[in-house]
């Protein structure tokens, strides 16, 4: 039976479709005839943009109220599957809510999830997911053994967004079942943390700091440099785990995947965890004291030196421009 119908868990904010969703659409429409997007809330404002990017329909699971997306979206997709009107393949982005949807759906359908996918390949009548391991030096391809719904969690920035010029997606609805206790989590308040400049995963220049920065106070140097380059500051997991900066700064396997024009790695050794998140950058500059640091293996320009000596001079040079 193969996969003729793909559903994408669609994310949007303030009526604007998330880039991750558009990326998934670009790939999905090359794989299947019918590509539909499942969203919550009012689907109408999203229909034109989704249609232009290749979706034939957008299906809303209804308003979440204060609830989180995971339980309702998963319940609605599972209900569709049980009545035979569901998809062959479900694609979710590896995002905060995408993981919730995929995990809950997996348990509901008793179907595994293939995670950390960066590419989808066709193998006869099934779809396989490609996952990079060991810092991206090895690609593992995985497929499902059963004929149940195939659920994939796909990393952001795996595919390029592409318009098809299609008509607005048809707006429809799918119903969730009784959510039981799973609806017990409700959002009371939303807080936006102050941030300046471009977003980490959208910036054309990213300046990241690692443990080599020394201590939390000195991270400011990274932010200054990022601001001067009109880029975004990032960090390695070591720095985030030490509590110097919030999790949202993290670049790597467990954080954000970035593919900027220039990635400047300061005091980052290049653990596999980190390399996965930035190896796709067009140009990489690395500054590290240890000439053996693995980061130099991927850098276009490697500086063996002390970040505390190099960066202040670099900041001065940029300020002089």
């Amino acid at each position: 039976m193969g996969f003729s119908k793909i559903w994408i868990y669609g994310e949007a904010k303030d009526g604007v479709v998330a880039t991750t969703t558009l990326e998934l659409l670009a790939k999905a429409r090359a794989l299947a005839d019918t590509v539909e997007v499942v969203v919550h809330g009012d689907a109408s404002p999203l229909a034109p943009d989704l249609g232009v990017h290749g979706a034939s329909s957008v299906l809303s699971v209804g308003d979440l109220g204060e609830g989180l997306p995971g339980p309702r979206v998963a319940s609605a997709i599972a209900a569709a599957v049980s009545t035979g009107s569901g998809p062959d393949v479900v694609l979710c982005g590896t995002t905060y809510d995408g993981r919730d949807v995929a995990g809950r759906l997996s348990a509901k359908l008793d179907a595994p999830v293939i995670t950390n996918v960066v590419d989808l390949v066709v193998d006869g009548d099934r779809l396989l997911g490609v996952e990079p391991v060991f810092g991206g030096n090895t690609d593992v391809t995985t497929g499902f053994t059963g004929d149940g719904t195939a659920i994939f969690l796909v990393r952001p920035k795996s595919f390029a967004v592409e318009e098809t010029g299609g008509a607005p997606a048809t707006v429809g609805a799918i119903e969730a079942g009784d959510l039981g206790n799973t609806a017990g989590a409700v959002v009371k308040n939303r807080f936006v943390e102050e941030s300046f400049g471009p977003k980490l995963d959208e910036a054309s220049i990213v300046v990241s700091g690692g443990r080599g920065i020394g201590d939390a106070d000195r991270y400011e140097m990274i932010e200054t440099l990022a601001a001067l380059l009109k880029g975004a500051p990032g960090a390695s997991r070591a720095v985030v785990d030490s509590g110097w900066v919030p999790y949202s700064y993290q670049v790597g396997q467990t954080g954000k995947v970035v593919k900027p024009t220039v990635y400047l790695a300061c005091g980052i050794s290049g653990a596999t965890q980190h390399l996965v998140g930035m190896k796709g950058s067009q140009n990489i500059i690395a500054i590290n004291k240890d000439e053996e640091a693995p980061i130099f293996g991927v850098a276009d320009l490697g500086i063996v030196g002390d970040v505390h000596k190099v960066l202040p001079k670099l900041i001065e040079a940029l300020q002089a421009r």
Partner: protein
Amino acid sequence: MWGVVPPGLSLSTIRPPYSCIDRWGNVPKIRSGLACSSLSAGTLSPMIVVVCVKQIPDPADPGALDPETRTLKRDVKLILDESDSYGVEMGLQLVDAAGEGEVRLVSMVPNSEVSGLRTALAMGAENAVLVSDEALAGSDALATAKVLAAAIRRCEPDLILTGTESSDGYTGTVPVQVAELMDLPSVTFAKEIAVADGVATVRRQTEDGYDEIECSLPAVVSVTAGVVEPRYPSFKGIMAAKNKPVDEVDLAGLGIDPSTVGWAGAGQEITDIAEAPAREAGDVIVDEGDAHERIMEFLDDLKVL
């Protein structure tokens, strides 16, 4: 930078409006023989936090794939996954704040390994349930969640804490799968948790800040790494950990059919392993005091300044 208690929230001993028995539909005798049998029935319960922990090969060692099973080699010394230590710390702080209760560990392995559990016990967890069964080898995330859910169910927790994802498999789906299998709410990517009057208030990381979420209990909450400072086990803690109860239970003991987990139950298979295209390394220079000039030239050539 962040603590466990959001400002403005008061902490008090949790007083669930239900007894710990009928809440889970279990009767005490089912629990006997497990670490979770220390609760006395019928009284208001102290706060029980289950923390799911994974014992993994040291991430600092270079990992390798087993040529036969094509999965990560695990026949090496296992340690406590560092990303789970934040959940352990968070649990200990919540129990401290509640005034009464305990942190119970739930973990699974194919081979009775306990060294990682001892680390978490030395930090202050009271006891552990270790599901150990040869048939668990090769379990995927969903099978793992089924086993953990069965073990957790018998612990009758008020709160279940996990990491956001393991440092070896990093699927990041197990916490939510556990919640769904147990018909519980979940909050993932928590940076702060407070518990009062049977409700957890959780600050959940978002793309541009955080959401403050109220969640009925019991619930599954996954804890973002780095949000608390995991305590170092004291010498006293390390000594005490040697005698803390680790109750080993096999799949039969949990009523799980071995053919539904491990290699036998895996719903996915690896079809190919290939070397990824390597990125070419460029120039590496030693800073002689003028490296910043090289960087400026590099940026100028790219026309990004």
